[in-house]
C-alpha cells in the first residue's frame, strides 16, 4: 500500500515510498534521519515537532507525509548555511533562549516565519506567535529576547545589501 512521494526537504528533493498513514514527523525522523524535529506530546499541543511547509509553521505530528508530496519542508537542519548558524540560531545561543533544547527547533522555525511576516515584532507579537510552542524550562523570557535580538540582526543584514545596491546606483 506504499505511495511514492517527492518532498523538497531543506532544498533537497527526497523521494520515498510511504504508507499513507505515516505522519510527516516520522517521515522526517525515520525515513530521512532528520532527528532535529522532535516529538513532544504527539497530540497537537506542544509544538516541538513544528516544521515549515511552504514557509508556514505546521505541527508535523498532525500532517500526513503524503500530504507534503510536492511541497517544500524546512526543518531545523536546514537553517545552517555553509557551516554558519542562522541568525535565529545565533540569537538563541547568545540570549540563552534554551535550556534542555527540546522545544528549540519548533521555537526557532515558528519565529523565523513570524519575522518574515513581521520583521519588527513587539514582545506581545512574539508571545502571541509562539503561543502554540510550549517550553518547560525557560519561562519564555529569554526566548522572547532571542527572537527580538534575531529581528534586529536580520533587519540589519537585510539593510546592508540594499544600502550597497543603493550606493551603486
Amino acid at each position, binding site marked *: 500500500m506504499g505511495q511514492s512521494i517527492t518532498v523538497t526537504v531543506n532544498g533537497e528533493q527526497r523521494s520515498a515510498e510511504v*504508507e499513507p*498513514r505515516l505522519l510527516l514527523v516520522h517521515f522526517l525522523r525515520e525515513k530521512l534521519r532528520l532527528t532535529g524535529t522532535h516529538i513532544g506530546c504527539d497530540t497537537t499541543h506542544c509544538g516541538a515537532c513544528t516544521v515549515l511547509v511552504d514557509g508556514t509553521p505546521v*505541527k508535523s505530528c498532525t500532517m*500526513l507525509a503524503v500530504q507534503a508530496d510536492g511541497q517544500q519542508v524546512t526543518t531545523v537542519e536546514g537553517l545552517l548555511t555553509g557551516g554558519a548558524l542562522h541568525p535565529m540560531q545565533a540569537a538563541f545561543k547568545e540570549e540563552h533562549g534554551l535550556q534542555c533544547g527540546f522545544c528549540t527547533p519548533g521555537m526557532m522555525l515558528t519565529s523565523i516565519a513570524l519575522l518574515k511576516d513581521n520583521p519588527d515584532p513587539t514582545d506581545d507579537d512574539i508571545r*502571541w506567535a509562539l503561543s502554540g510552542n510550549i517550553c518547560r524550562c525557560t519561562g519564555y523570557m529569554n526566548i522572547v529576547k532571542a527572537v527580538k535580538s534575531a529581528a534586529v540582526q536580520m533587519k540589519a543584514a537585510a539593510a546592508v545589501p540594499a544600502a550597497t545596491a543603493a550606493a551603486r546606483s
Partner: protein
Amino acid sequence: MLPAPFEYHAPRSVDEALDLLDQFGDEGKVLAGGQSLIPLLKLRFASPAHLVDINKIKDLDFIEERDGTLRIGPLFRHKAAERSSLLASRYQVMADAAPMIADPIIRNRGTIAGSVAHADPSGDWGTVLLAMDAELVLRSKKGSRTVKARDFFSGPFSTALEPTEILTEIRIPAAKPMTGGAYLKLERKVGDFATVAVAVQLRMDDGKVGSAGIGLTAVGPQNIKAEKAEASLKGVRLDDAAIKQAAALAADASDPKADHRGSVEYKRNVVRVFTERGLKRASERARGGG
C-alpha cells in the same frame, strides 16, 4: 502514534472527490485541515478505510460577499479568517472568534468548514454560525442541498452531513447596516477548548433590536442556539432590563456538565455574564463604535 491503515486519495476536483465518496460510502472520510481528524485517527477514535484529501483541489479557499450573502469555501483557514479585513470590519463575531481558535500553528492549517463538519460541542465556529443564521451547502454526487445551521447539528460530533457529501460552502446573510457582533470565550490557556463561549450577532433597527442571534459553546451536547433569548430581544429597546432577561434565558438554554473546567453553576453563570457583555459589545459595534 500511528493511525490505522487507510487508503489516501488526493482528487483534483470536487466532482472527482464526490465520485470517490460515493464509491466509499461509510468507509470514506473527507480530510480538510486535519487538525481534528488526524488526532482522531492517531487515537483510533476514527478509522476510515479511505481518506479523501481535498487540499489539492483549487478554488476551495475563498471568502466573498456576493448577492447579499457572505460565502466561505471549505479550505478557508482559521488564519485567513484572523487576517481578513472584511471580517474585521463587517463580521466582528467571526473576527473575534478566529484568533481564539486553538493556537497559531493549528490555525495555519485548520479550516472553518472542517471545524463545523467535525461538530465538537466545544468547537467555536458552529456557535458563531448559529448566531449568524448561516446555511450550509452540502453536495454529493447526486446533487446539492442547503441546510440551516440550526438543523445541521444533531449531537456531539454528529451532523446532517452524509458520508457521501462535502460541505462545499458556508452561506451567511450579508451584514445589513447597524449590525454588530461579538464572541467571548473563556479558556484556561491558549489552545484549550472553551470552558464557555458565547456568540452574539445583533442588528439594530431604529433604536430597537431588528434581530438577535445568540450561540453557546461547550455548554451542552452540541453548539446551542439560544432561541428564546433571541426572541425576547426582537423589536425591543436594548436597555439593561432587556439585556438581563435575554442573558437569563441564554443561561437557561445552556445544559453544561461539571468537569475540570468548572461546575454546572459556574458555567451557567458565565453564559449569563458573557451574554450580557456580548450584547453590549455587539450593540456598540452596531452603532459604529468599537
